[in-house]
Structure formats: structure tokens, C-alpha cells
């Protein structure tokens, strides 16, 4: 099977500051890769390279002809006061594959309604986005990423604003979506993502690929990935590493 995306020996820099060096990564059709790493480690830069928003200084980026990316950016980069309706936001996700000069047909309108129903915002087509909460807005942007039926979904910190009531839904949805598309999920919340993803890439200047979703402090340390492990449970707790004699 041909990979959707292949990064070969990619390096990236801003004004001579090398942010990523010699990164290799392959994304295959049924992958669910969690990208973790400290702030400033190059997670966002890696996404921007994959999305063609910045050019690497060296290395090559190969893409499958069939590649169709759905992208959920960090919500805080978006102007929440912008005069645009929820419907128009979602429809803008469709212009990647469909001609934007055509009026959206019945099928597309129906799909918008379906997506809105799924995120619990039915009948809000013509509301402006300024009236949404952070979590609702993030769900609307998720719909925008999904409306074009992508085969690769890229999510940048999707759990930042999502309210707790929707979080479980989101994770269930992602694992369902994974049947049809590859998913790249960037997160700083390691504990949350490790339960959902299939494999993990730790980005900190370079990229270390870990072909399973079991991450331990040892793994992180040996990869030079200075982040703390957080785990969620019914009782607040910290997970300490195993004793040496165990």
C-alpha cells in the first residue's frame, strides 16, 4: 500500500534557527499517529510542512495523488468576531475538492445539517460564530475538516477547548473515523492521546517514531522528550514509574 505522505530527511528552520532536523515519517491509510513533544519542539512546524504552509530547507515530502487532507487548526488562531455563519464555515471546508464557484447542492446542504446535528448544533446554520463557546467552535471546525471526506485528518490540539461532555464523543468519533481515514493528532496531553492513538511520534527538534501507543517515562527519556506523563482516572492520581526490583 502506498503511503499517503512520506517525509524523507526533512529539516526546517526560521531565520537560520533550525527547528526540525532530519525528520523521517510515513503516514499510511489506516494510521492513527499521536504527535507529542514539548512546546517549541517543532510539532506545529511539522504540521505546517505537511500542510505545505512552509517549505523545508532540505529533504523531500512525497504525497499520494489521492491525498485529501482535512485540517483542524488550533482554535485560538481564529478571529472569533469575524462576521461569518456556522454554515459558511463548514462549507468552506468543501472547497478543497469541489469547485467553490458553484452553489452548494442539496446533498451538501444535507451533509451540513447532518454534521451540525451530530455536534448538537442543529438549526444553527445561520448563527454567527461569535455566539459559540470555545468548545462549540472547535466542533464546528471539526465539521469543516470532515465535510470533504478526507483520507487524512490532521488535528492540532483538538482537546484544548472541547468540553468534558463532548470529549468522550470526540474520542469515540475519532476511532470510528479511523476506519475510513488516517489521523494525525497533535497534543501536549500525552495521557489522553495514548489511549486513542495506535502509534506515537515524539517531536523535539528531531522526530522519534514509537510504533505502539505504550509510552513510559523511559521511552520518553530515551527519546529526549522532556514532557510529563499525565493520566486520567476517577480519583486524581499520579502514576510513578515502576521500582527497579519489580
Amino acid at each position, binding site marked *: 500500500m502506498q503511503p499517503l505522505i512520506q517525509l524523507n530527511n526533512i529539516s526546517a528552520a*526560521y*531565520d537560520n534557527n533550525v527547528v526540525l532536523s532530519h525528520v523521517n515519517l510515513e503516514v499510511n491509510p489506516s494510521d492513527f499517529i499521536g504527535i507529542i513533544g514539548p512546546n517549541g519542539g517543532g510539532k506545529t512546524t511539522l504540521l505546517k510542512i505537511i*500542510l*505545505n*504552509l512552509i517549505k523545508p530547507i532540505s529533504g523531500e515530502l512525497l504525497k499520494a495523488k489521492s491525498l485529501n*487532507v482535512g*485540517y483542524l*487548526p488550533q482554535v485560538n*488562531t*481564529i*478571529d472569533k468576531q*469575524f*462576521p*461569518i*455563519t456556522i454554515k*459558511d*464555515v463548514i*462549507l*468552506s*471546508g468543501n*472547497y*478543497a475538492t469541489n469547485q*467553490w*464557484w458553484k452553489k452548494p447542492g442539496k446533498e451538501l446542504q444535507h451533509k451540513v445539517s447532518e454534521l451540525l446535528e451530530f455536534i448538537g448544533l442543529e438549526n444553527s446554520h*445561520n*448563527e*454567527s460564530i461569535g455566539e459559540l463557546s470555545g468548545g462549540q467552535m472547535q466542533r464546528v471546525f471539526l465539521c*469543516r475538516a470532515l465535510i*470533504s471526506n478526507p483520507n487524512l485528518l490532521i488535528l492540532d490540539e483538538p482537546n484544548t477547548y472541547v468540553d468534558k461532555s463532548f470529549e468522550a464523543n470526540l474520542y469515540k468519533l475519532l476511532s470510528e473515523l479511523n476506519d475510513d481515514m488516517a489521523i494525525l493528532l497533535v497534543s501536549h496531553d500525552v495521557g489522553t492521546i495514548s489511549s486513542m492513538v495506535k502509534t506515537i511520534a515524539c517531536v523535539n527538534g528531531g522526530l522519534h517514531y514509537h510504533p505502539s501507543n505504550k509510552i513510559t517515562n523511559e521511552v520518553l527519556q530515551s527519546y529526549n522528550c522532556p514532557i510529563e506523563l499525565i493520566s486520567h482516572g476517577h480519583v486524581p492520581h499520579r502514576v510513578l514509574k515502576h521500582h527497579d526490583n519489580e
Partner: protein
Amino acid sequence: MNELLELLSFGFFRNALIAAVLTSIIAGIVGSYIVARRTVFISGGITHASFGGMGIAYFLGFPPFAGAAVFAILSAIGIEWSSNKVGLREDSSIAILWSLGMAIGILFVFLTPGYTPNLMGFLFGDILTVKVSDLLWLSAIGLICILLIKLFYPVILSVAFDSEFASVSKMPVQTIKYVSAIIVAISIVLSIKVMGIILVLSLFTIPASAANLFAKDLKKMMYFSVLISVIGSVTGLLVAYYLDLPSGATIIFTLTILYMLLRIKKLF
């Protein structure tokens, strides 16, 4: 009423009225785009930079508005280009452009031998001397604005809202950005005839901000904005005529009063 009809029989007043309406249509559409994208300050920079072109054109004996248009378009393209580069302090660069344009303009108007051109007209507008050729230019740009919005609204909206996502979606982001920068520049320069360099920015921002109080999307904002702008500028023009006051100032007062009334209405 008779008095108004009599007034309309004067060619200069008819032209002024048509100019006010055409300028309002352009300012309503382009102004909504500027306000929605939060590029009011950039537009201010372009407006004032155009005075440099005006001064040079005067000095060399070219039509001053052609000089203004060249300067405005170049600075609009320059700002768009530099905003794509990383690490530029945009607000400071625009402030420099702003005052440099004015300085060049003042210098060349001063150096122009012979009579001193009507500086006040450039700075505060001169709607009563509008010529038929000005009206044709205003109609042409107005028509272009309406056509562009009519044909390309979805992509203009998407690029204005989230240009990063639009570029991931392979929309023609750079083309849209440069074309719209040029349209904004030309619209501003043509409106200078009516409002003057110093006051023109308010014609682009007050109606749009008022419309923004009620409109839920950019298209509705444009409709409301044109409506508010036409009402405000025609009323302002009549007030200016009857009270013998400068029209640019009365138009802005009327628009501001309209804005405040709408603001109050929104509270209830």
C-alpha cells in the same frame, strides 16, 4: 420639496449627489471587507501614502489622482507582500509608510512652481467639483466590486476568514489577497475626491462598524453598510448645502449619529 427639485437642477449638485451615492456603495462593500479583516490601520496607511503620489504627480504635471492611485496600489501590494514574510513589525512599518507618504506629498506640493494647488480639497474632500469623468470612474469600480462579490463570494469569504485553512484547501489565496489589496487601494483613492485624505477612512469604517452590530455574515454586513452609508452621506450632503458647511465633516457627523442610534437600539 420644490426646493430640493430646484437643487437637483444644478449640474454640480446632481453630480455631487451621484458621487456620494456611488462612493457609499464602494465604501460599504470595501469597508465591510476591511473592517471584517481588521485591516483598518493598513487602509489608513495606504490612504495617507497616496498623498505622496499626488504631490509628485503635481510637481511633474501629471493628473494628481493618477499619482495617488499608483502610490496607493504600490503600498497596498508592498504591505501584502511584507505580511507574508516572517518577523516584520507590521504596525510600525505601516506608520512609517503613513507619514513618509504625507511628507513626500507636502514636499512636492511645496516645490511645485506657480500656484499652490487646492490642498484643502485633497485633505478634506471637494464633492462640489466632481466631474462626469470622476463619476464614470466611481461607477466602474463600484461595478467591479459588486461583480467580484457576486461571483467569488465563497472564496473571498473563506480567505478573509482563515487564509491558512484556505491555502491548505488549495484556494487561490495569494491571487485573492493581491487583487483585493489593489481594489481596496483604488476604492480609497477614488473616494478621496469626495471625502478627502483625512476623512475618507471614516466612510469606510463607520457604516461597516454599524452594520457589524447586526449582520451575522459578511454579505449582510455589506448590504447594511451600503444602506447606512448612502443614508448618511446623502443626508450629510444636504445638511452641508443648507447650512453652508464642509460636506466631508457633515457626512461624518451624520454617519456617527446613525452609528450611535444603532448602537443604542442594539441595547434594547
